[in-house]
């Protein structure tokens, strides 16, 4: 790391609202417009360049301030310089049903993706029960579109999401869905436990700002042409606009080799983990686009330190697309356990 270019004021776990407000006011005098970012067990404020030690000294003695940390990485709140140990994100905070930590020292979290196919309620109940029994913790429903899903779109409607919410509540699964239109953020966030941003939207900065104001954890996928630094800066958008609960998902990058496009970038898992305290999950399904490669790459990701996996599942046997069949999923879940144990983790 080079010269510090910013500061992060870290507030204690049990900070009183009045203290947080006073600290925000004091930082605001140094740099107008800064916002308080809330994580699960932390809150913090980042502010910019050119402030020397003597100017931040006064902040250190304010009630509620735990530390004031100089940061040299281009991203600030996301930087490993702020928290030396991994920080977990809590999933399922203010509703009944699934409730657990992702990242930190929590077990490996498996997200079951069922594509955007429209299914009957009965099918959804059966699949949710089945993936929960196999050890998945989250159901990723797909991308939410407008209207009823007609007009050639295979996106989910908000009504689909309502059904899925009931189904996942019953199955003790958390629910995730992807949003790409910032006008839908509030409605979708009210129905799901995690909001996903697809790789194509990774640098939709207005969407990221909106998610910074959302009260749900955000799963941010790496764009297939984005370098790690850009990925972390995209997460910083969410963080610095107030939402401390960002989760990074490595989803593959584009390379010269189009045979198995895209390529799962295994190096990114430890590179990102070293750069940030945020949870890092991996999607071997999207990133290999071939069911034959998914189990090996999923195991590799856990061995390399991933905090979770997104696995695309087929209703029946492995299909023509990237989805693996239920029996392969069961086998993989069993094989993941000793691999996680070898790196000091468990699978939920």
């Amino acid at each position, binding site marked *: 790391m080079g010269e510090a270019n910013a500061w992060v004021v870290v507030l204690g776990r049990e900070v009183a609202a009045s203290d947080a407000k006073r600290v925000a006011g004091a930082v605001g005098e140094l740099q107008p417009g800064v916002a308080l970012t809330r994580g699960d067990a932390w809150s913090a404020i980042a502010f910019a360049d050119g402030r020397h030690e003597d100017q931040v000294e006064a902040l250190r003695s304010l009630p509620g301030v735990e530390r004031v940390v100089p940061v040299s990485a281009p991203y600030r709140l996301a930087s490993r310089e702020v928290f030396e140990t991994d920080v977990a994100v809590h999933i399922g905070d203010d509703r009944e049903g699934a409730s657990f930590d992702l990242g930190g020292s929590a077990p490996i979290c498996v997200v079951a993706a069922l594509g955007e196919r429209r299914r009957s309620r009965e099918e959804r109940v059966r699949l949710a029960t089945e993936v929960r029994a196999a050890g998945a913790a989250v159901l990723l429903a797909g991308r939410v579109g407008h209207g009823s899903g007609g007009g050639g779109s295979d996106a989910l409607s908000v009504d689909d999401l309502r059904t899925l919410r009931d189904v996942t509540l019953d199955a003790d699964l958390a629910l995730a869905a992807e949003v790409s239109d910032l006008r839908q953020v509030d409605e979708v966030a009210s129905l799901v436990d995690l909001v996903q941003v697809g790789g194509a939207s990774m640098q939709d900065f207005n969407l990221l700002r909106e998610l910074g104001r959302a009260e749900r954890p955000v799963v941010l996928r790496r764009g297939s*042409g984005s*370098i*790690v*630094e850009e990925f972390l800066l995209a997460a910083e958008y969410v963080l610095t606009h107030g939402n401390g609960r960002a989760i990074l998902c490595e989803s593959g*990058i584009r*390379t*010269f*080799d189009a*045979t*198995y*496009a895209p*390529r*799962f*970038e*295994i*190096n*990114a*898992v*430890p*590179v990102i983990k*070293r750069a940030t305290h945020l949870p890092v999950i991996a999607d071997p399904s999207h990133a*290999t*686009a*071939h069911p*034959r*490669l998914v189990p*090996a*790459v999923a*195991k*590799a*990701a*856990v*061995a*390399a*330190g991933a905090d979770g996996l997104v696995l695309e599942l087929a209703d029946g046997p492995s299909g*023509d*697309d*990237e989805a693996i069949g239920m029996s392969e999923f069961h086998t993989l879940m069993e*094989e993941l356990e*000793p*691999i996680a*144990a*070898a*790196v000091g983790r468990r699978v939920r």
Partner: protein
Amino acid sequence: MATQPQGAGTIDADGSRPYAGSVVDIAGVAIGAGQPVRVIAGPCSVESEQQFRETAIAVRAAGGALLRGGAFKPRTSPYAFQGLGRLGLEIMRAVGDELGMGVVTEAMAAEDVELVAQLADMVQIGARNMDNRALLESAAASGRPVLLKRGITATIDEVLRAADVLVAADNDQIVICERGSRTFEPSTRNSLDVAAVPEVKFRSGFPVVVDPSHGTGRRDIVEPISLAGIAAGADGIIIEVHPNPPEALSDGPQSWEASRFGEYMGAIHAMASAVGRA
């Protein structure tokens, strides 16, 4: 969906895979299907007898299976250390014999293959030479097993075609090495293609080893990437180890410290046990 390229690599036209389950023997060490995960370790370049011996002793003590070292060095710059040549080979042979370990080293030119094959137990074809047909044919003709490294921008198809050249020259004692390729990402030297591990094994049947040193270029992620390779089914690891990486004449930033090699091997052993291949 990815289509299965046909007629490339060592899949026969009828779809059968004559090399499925291959095991390659290198100086009594078996690498491949059903064998334990093997670790090939040593310095990028042989710099001196003392440097190679010190590294080799650390490798052997920690449970490394084979020694690696470079005598003929394909360096990006013509001004960089080019290797000790014949002297380097002789040092490797002497230390290998002293410790009872086989050695693996690169041949850079067809005319060097005879000498390399005489002094080493396995001939390595480097990433830059993956398409060097004359070199491939000489290496095949040497009768030694061949470690074939995937080129820096080679597709899986292309590395399997290079293996076909070896097979056509009557040498099927082939181990393929995934060592990362060039991508747009600047935080690492190369990007290891971990999916290539199961895919090369599936399509060719030849044993696959992973090179986490070149695959990352960063010592701080060499260990997790080694573990990832093993979890993905690699038959072995080839890793650069040096007694004093900051002073190394080549590849210092990606070389593992010899004094900490036992620690590394502990993690490797745990992961190999997890996949039933300790």
